[in-house]
């Protein structure tokens, strides 16, 4: 089923990926989305925009991010496979989120807008947005579910230090889904002066296409780096999938290499059978959420079902529409990873490589362990190490029964 060009350019232009994607938004946002579409297209055709973005990526973010061979982790925990880590954790602000944010922040300036808003789950996208806003002199408001402000308190403090206003959202499940609702409500009211820097490949067109474009630098670099290091393409690429931006960013460069299997790992929470999870493919169905048709965790009446995950960044009942299409066409494969499996992989990476990953990323590492055992020692596996775990130290300490991290030290 794996077609070479999964999506024709005509479909992308209309913001559709097969039956998925599109725009399901209040009419008040249509003009802004059309304006964004146009600004994005003009920027993509402007060498000046690329030069500015490239300069910031190099001198501010620290790109290209390195590729690290995880020798001990591969040997001891991945069936002896060769595992390469694409080190997005080493980017300024600590995750891949900054790639997308800088692109959209520069677009904001081009559109003449002075204020940016963002939703955030783990806080990484919020921190990246607050960072870019400080850099470019933009006003910044970040919406964050109250539950997430608690479990990612360190990032809340970082955003505030950077001058952003953090608005805890108390509606619904008090997580990422509700933060997005609130950001949309802000945007529909302030759209003339505000750009909504959506943090992942979800939402109405053109967000999925645009965010993928800004994240695709991950895959472009990684493809060359793997070829240089190993002399051939990897057998599998693994990434965690919240909304799906780090996964789309690394998958994009390999979509036309049918021999490279693409694997996305979603949050299995307490286990898909318990209903407490964020596995949209294993436990959801096609529907419409937050402006796009995609896989959604929903009940028989189309009401969104709250998701659950130890990882705030994967705790979301929807997923990017392009992933829905890659899933249906079979070009990419998706599987859930439970909290326990993720935390096991988290600890193993810490102990074998001296790298503390984000808990989101630990889901991809658990996936790589499965893949390695499956594929054996001749396999090469490329893992997107989407972020670092500083923000998760308190959660991890609790999980492993270590002495509690002083909350004051977390910056509350």
């Amino acid at each position, binding site marked *: 089923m794996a077609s070479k060009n999964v999506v024709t350019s005509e479909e992308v232009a209309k913001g559709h990926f097969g039956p998925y994607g*599109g*725009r*399901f*938004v*209040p*009419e*008040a946002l*249509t*003009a*802004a989305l059309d304006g964004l579409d146009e600004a994005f297209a003009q920027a993509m055709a402007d060498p000046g925009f690329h030069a500015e973005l490239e300069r910031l990526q190099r001198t501010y973010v620290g790109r290209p991010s390195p590729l690290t061979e995880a020798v001990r982790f591969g040997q001891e925990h991945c069936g002896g496979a060769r595992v390469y880590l694409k080190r997005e954790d080493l980017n300024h602000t600590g995750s891949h989120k900054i790639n997308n944010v800088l692109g959209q922040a520069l677009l904001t300036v081009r559109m003449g807008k002075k204020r940016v808003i963002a939703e955030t789950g783990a806080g990484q996208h919020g921190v990246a947005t607050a960072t870019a806003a400080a850099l470019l002199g933009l006003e910044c408001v970040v919406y964050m579910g109250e539950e997430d402000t608690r479990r990612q308190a360190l990032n809340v403090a970082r955003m505030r230090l950077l001058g952003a206003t953090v608005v805890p959202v108390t*509606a*619904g499940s008090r997580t990422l*889904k509700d933060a*997005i*609702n609130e950001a*949309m*409500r802000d945007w*529909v*009211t*302030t*759209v*003339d002066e505000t750009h909504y820097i959506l943090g992942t490949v979800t939402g109405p067109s053109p967000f999925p296409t645009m965010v993928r474009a800004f994240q695709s630098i991950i895959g472009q670099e990684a493809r060359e780096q793997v070829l240089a290091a190993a002399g051939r393409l990897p057998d599998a690429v693994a990434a965690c999938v919240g909304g799906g931006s780090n996964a789309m960013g690394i998958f994009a460069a390999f979509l036309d290499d049918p021999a490279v299997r693409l694997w996305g790992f979603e949050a299995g929470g307490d286990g898909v059978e318990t209903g407490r999870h964020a596995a949209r493919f294993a436990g959801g169905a096609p*529907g*419409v*959420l*937050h*402006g796009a*048709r995609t896989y*959604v965790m*929903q009940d*028989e*009446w*189309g*009401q*969104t079902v709250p998701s659950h995950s130890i990882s705030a960044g994967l705790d979301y009942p929807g997923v990017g529409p392009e992933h829905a299409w890659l899933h249906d066409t079979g070009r990419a494969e998706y599987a859930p990873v439970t909290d326990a499996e993720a935390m096991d992989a988290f600890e193993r990476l810490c102990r074998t490589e001296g790298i503390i990953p984000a808990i989101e990323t630990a889901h991809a590492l658990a996936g790589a362990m499965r893949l390695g055992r499956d594929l054996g020692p001749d396999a090469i596996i490329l893992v997107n190490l989407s972020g670092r775990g500083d923000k998760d130290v308190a959660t991890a300490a609790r999980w492993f029964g270590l002495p509690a991290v002083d909350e004051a030290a977390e910056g509350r």
Partner: protein
Amino acid sequence: MTALADAFARARAEERAALIGYLPAGFPNREDSVRLMRAMVEAGVDIVEVGLPYSDPLMDGPVIQAAADQALRGGTTPADVIAIAGDVAKTGAATVVMSYWNPVERFGVEAFARDLAAAGGCGVITPDLTPEESAAWAAATREHDIDRVYLVAPSSTDERLRTVSDACTGFVYAASTMGVTGARSSVSGAAEALVARVRRVTDLPVAVGLGVSTGEQAAEIAAYADGVIVGSAFIRLVLDAPGIEEAESSVAGLARELAAGVRRRRIDAGPVT
């Protein structure tokens, strides 16, 4: 002629605007929601908009969110909403459902139009569905004679106004302001300009909603629009009432005030085609 067209024609014959009242189905509970909507009709509401409570109402402010939440906690399903719309339609008032798109799609686009028509409902307002994504919905509603109402906003371009109005039947819903639902102390001046722009591209009735809460505002809007839509202000009264009796009498009181408002100023010009 559908019940909606009928309601607007009647109002026009009386040289006034139609009054459209919104309440979520199942709020504060199933039985009382029907009772409140009937009270609205008795007090002068021409068209009832029955809200389908949804988990992620991203076009709604805190008041409608709270009401939808309560209705969902009470277990209100889309099937209940259709049945409630049927109960309300028995009053003789034109009855439409307002729903975010996912519950309709999940119910089955064809089944939703069919069941609503069978129950006696006559239209559906879809705040997050655009004409571009509506092929199946247009076919199903045409088949079952259900009116399709989409929204236009002050930010809509002229081209967009034409596309959206062309896709509407029954009436065009003009959002008075850039924002979410909720009562406001004044209705934005953008509404009048928007209605004038819509009239240039359609001869369908144009109704104005978002932020309307008083008879005074209703009178102001009735001077230039064919319909005045009020939602959050009714819900606020129900939320603040100590019991259903009080809720019913204050909802009826507001409906009477608004009904007087839409009669106070006549429409000075018919639509321009």
